[in-house]
């Protein structure tokens, strides 16, 4: 797809934007043509930009009466054939959780950008946090999968929003950008590429919209108004959408496929970045989001001091990059996990590694500074292993 003035999209080249502005532009570039949202700090500026930018590309914007209505109308718009999204922060994300499960179970592509603030409760509305990592995976009831990316820069706010749309459409799944207040509001240079790889919905008239024998596990998705007489339901359903809520077989088949279509494609979804990991470091820092910027600075500094320290940055949080974390655990003596929560990713990492995992938790609404990470690493660093 060509980006350029004539399309209403931001022209290719260098721009100076905030993370939230870049996410809005990424959504348009990905083909998003429906946005419904409700004001909430620190995500509102995504909606404000989308509100005037979507009509410029022929899309529909509506401010709904609450977050529940926002996410539900996004799902309705998605079934009517448009790529659709919303953005929110913790309290709004909590309200959306029932519909996230509905989206997963009805295989409706949607994108949510969660600009995380410090919780729980109303918490620190204007302050940074990353306490929604586990909620993003487990917030709705039942067993389902989601896709979630954690950007660390304005560039990645753009790129990961595009990628979230691609994954949502490719796998018919709710996809999240788990941003945080800091990456949402930082302003820096970004480069908009000449062209982007954009995924479009697979169509196959007459095919079952909710079952496929194809090992890929993702059925084609028709839209309302195409004459398919669609039956969409959040109750247990067969391939054509007929409710079979008392059938153990249909339920098992459906839930198994919905989980497998993501877990079996983990390698296509998961993305990580390694720094200084070649020499089997004494300590590997496992990090994501804005915190990874501080962590990389700290690790670089410790390297100049001669400490063997590496870094694994998770660009994807869900499905969890289990292989990369397992490998880091096998190479490193210890895993150090700085995060703006009480150890959510540290706990997840413990499932996959045998070495010691040391959480570094900070939940005061401030970004974690490089010095705090460097000090934390020094405390657990005991010198080269024999």
């Amino acid at each position, binding site marked *: 797809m060509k980006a350029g003035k004539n399309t209403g999209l931001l022209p290719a080249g260098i721009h100076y934007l905030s993370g939230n502005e870049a996410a809005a532009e990424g959504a348009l570039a990905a083909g998003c*043509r*429906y946005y*419904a949202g409700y004001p909430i700090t620190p995500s509102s500026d995504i909606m404000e930009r989308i509100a005037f930018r979507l009509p410029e590309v022929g899309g*529909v914007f*509506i401010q*709904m*009466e*609450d977050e*529940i*209505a*926002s996410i*539900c*109308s*996004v*799902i*309705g*718009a*998605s*079934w*009517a*054939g*448009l790529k*659709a999204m919303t953005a929110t922060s913790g309290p709004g994300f909590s309200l959306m959780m*029932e*519909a996230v499960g*509905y989206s997963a179970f009805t295989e409706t592509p949607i994108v949510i950008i969660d600009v995380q603030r410090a919780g729980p409760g109303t918490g620190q509305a204007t302050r940074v946090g990353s306490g929604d990592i586990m909620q993003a995976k487990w917030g709705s009831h039942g067993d389902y999968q989601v896709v979630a990316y954690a950007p660390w820069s304005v560039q990645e706010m753009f790129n990961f929003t595009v990628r979230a749309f691609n994954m949502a459409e490719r796998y018919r799944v709710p996809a999240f950008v788990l941003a945080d207040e800091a990456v949402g509001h930082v302003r820096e240079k970004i480069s908009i590429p000449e062209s982007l790889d954009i995924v479009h919905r697979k169509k196959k008239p007459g095919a079952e919209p909710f079952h496929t024998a194809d090992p890929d596990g993702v059925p084609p998705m028709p*839209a*309302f*108004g*195409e*004459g*398919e*007489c*669609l*039956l*969409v*339901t*959040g*109750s247990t359903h067969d391939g054509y*959408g*007929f*409710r079979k809520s008392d059938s153990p077989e249909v339920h098992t088949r459906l839930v198994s496929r919905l989980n497998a279509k993501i877990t079996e494609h983990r390698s296509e979804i998961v993305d990580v970045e390694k720094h200084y990991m070649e020499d089997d470091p004494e300590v590997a820092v496992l990090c994501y989001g804005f915190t990874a910027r501080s962590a990389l600075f700290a690790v670089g500094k410790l390297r100049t001091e001669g400490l063997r320290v590496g870094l694994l940055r998770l660009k994807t949080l869900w499905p969890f990059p289990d292989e990369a974390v397992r490998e880091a655990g096998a190479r490193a003596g210890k895993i150090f996990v700085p995060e703006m929560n009480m150890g959510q990713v540290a706990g997840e990492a413990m499932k996959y590694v045998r070495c010691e995992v040391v959480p570094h938790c900070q939940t005061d609404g401030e970004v974690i500074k490089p010095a705090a990470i460097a000090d934390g690493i020094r405390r657990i660093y005991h010198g080269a292993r024999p």
Partner: protein
Amino acid sequence: MARDLEEHLRPEIKITPFCAGCGHGILMGLILRAVDALGLDWREILFVSGIGCAAWIPSPHFKADTLHTLHGRAIPFATGAKLANPKLTTIVVSGDGDLTSIGGNHLIHAARRNIDMTVICANNMIYGMTGGQLASTTPVGMKTATSLGGNPYRPFDLQALVKAAGAVYSCRYAVAQPLAVIDGIKKAIGVKGFSFVEVLSSCPAQYGRRNNLESPAAILEMLRKRCVRKEDVDRIDPEKLKDLIVTGEFVNGDA
């Protein structure tokens, strides 16, 4: 006539899920008759429903696009679909608990925004599917599973509610007034903007059995006796009117 309507039903469905004597079966037939009479292209009709017995009226029976959603949220789902594809004739069919209690906020906001959709509210004055609990529409004094001593709270007057919220067409009839219901649905769908059709339905299984209206005939007879035409209200003793249900058109933008 009835067999002609079969073309609008999915052939895979042989029976309805409704209890014997449920008014929703009548309403289902009335919706089919009304929509059929309008001569619309069924490939461009979208039926959206929430959760509850009435939500099963369109889904899975009607051979059109159907979206069976979350409890209370049919209207925002419908809003998204309608805005994304304005060609869709969008009809919400759901119950009183779904649309006016858990989903009450969405009802008034869709009316306020004047979204071009028709909401058909099957009002049986109780939560039928979950076992007969108190609803926001249960009349004062009526017994339910959660008000065994009689409901102490006033019910919503749904007509006053949607009128105040800005609906451009709104009417109330009972399933015991079938021709009026058909007419109301036809008018509502024909209106551009937000329209609301409240249909008083009967739930002998949950509402009836606790209130001496156990037989389907008794509850329909009750509705027939209590429903009076709006035009006749002036001639009725105000004391008597308290026990009656006023039916008719409460908002008609053209009038």
